């Protein structure tokens, strides 16, 4: 039997992430939907956490350093935000750090139901909390 040729029609394609190029910079915007409305303090904390992520990447030099500006964080409503990152490259270990930052915010402050097309951070449907979550903690 001949091997099938796959096309766009065979994929579930998401375009929820806005990605564009500005010269040598990639600008990408992500949508975050929370399970409940965030207070103003929680909204500020979410923005601070993402700005902190940027400075951690920049000054630690441990996660690749393609970020070129502080993230822009906007709340479209009290339970929906979007943030924009500007980078030279989308490759690198910064993705794991961003994943950890969002995962912990979701579990400690306000549940993130959706991050673009992903429900990885939703405590109700995402990966299960481990019995001893220290197994995933860095030493």
């Amino acid at each position, binding site marked *: 039997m001949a091997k099938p040729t796959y096309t766009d029609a065979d994929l579930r394609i998401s375009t929820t992430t806005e990605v564009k190029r500005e010269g040598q910079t990639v600008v990408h915007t992500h949508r975050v939907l929370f399970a409940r409305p965030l207070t103003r303090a929680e909204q500020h904390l979410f923005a601070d956490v993402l700005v902190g992520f940027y400075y951690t990447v920049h000054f630690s030099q441990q996660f690749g350093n393609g970020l070129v500006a502080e993230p822009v964080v906007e709340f479209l409503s009290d339970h929906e935000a979007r943030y924009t990152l500007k980078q030279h490259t989308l490759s690198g270990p910064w993705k794991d750090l961003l*994943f950890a930052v969002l995962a912990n915010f979701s579990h400690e402050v306000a549940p993130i139901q959706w991050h673009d097309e992903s429900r990885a951070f939703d405590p109700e449907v995402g990966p299960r909390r481990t019995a001893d979550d220290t197994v995933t903690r860095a030493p």
Partner: protein
Amino acid sequence: MILYHGTDVDSALNILNHGLDAAKLTALQLDRPTQLGRGWYAAYEAEVAWFFASLAPGNVGRGYAVIEIDIPEDILNQLIAAQQAIRSAIVNVPFGAQQYWFDLRAF
């Protein structure tokens, strides 16, 4: 065992239609930082793969997708024993989120 790889649409179709291409991957990752080194990445959970798909380098204008890889567990364990694959937890998250790295020699 099913693993999930999140990537841009063109890369997903390329893998589905032509398989993994070490030369292309090497060219793509040349001079770019990677999490566990030059190689191919997959996640144990689809929802985790969807997160990384949204950050795929080729994702400009075409969107992104997640593809499944069905790999026999004994083969995966052989690759891990031969150090051609690594099972790794994403650190500092409050749940178990595993990712797999495959060396180019494993293709």
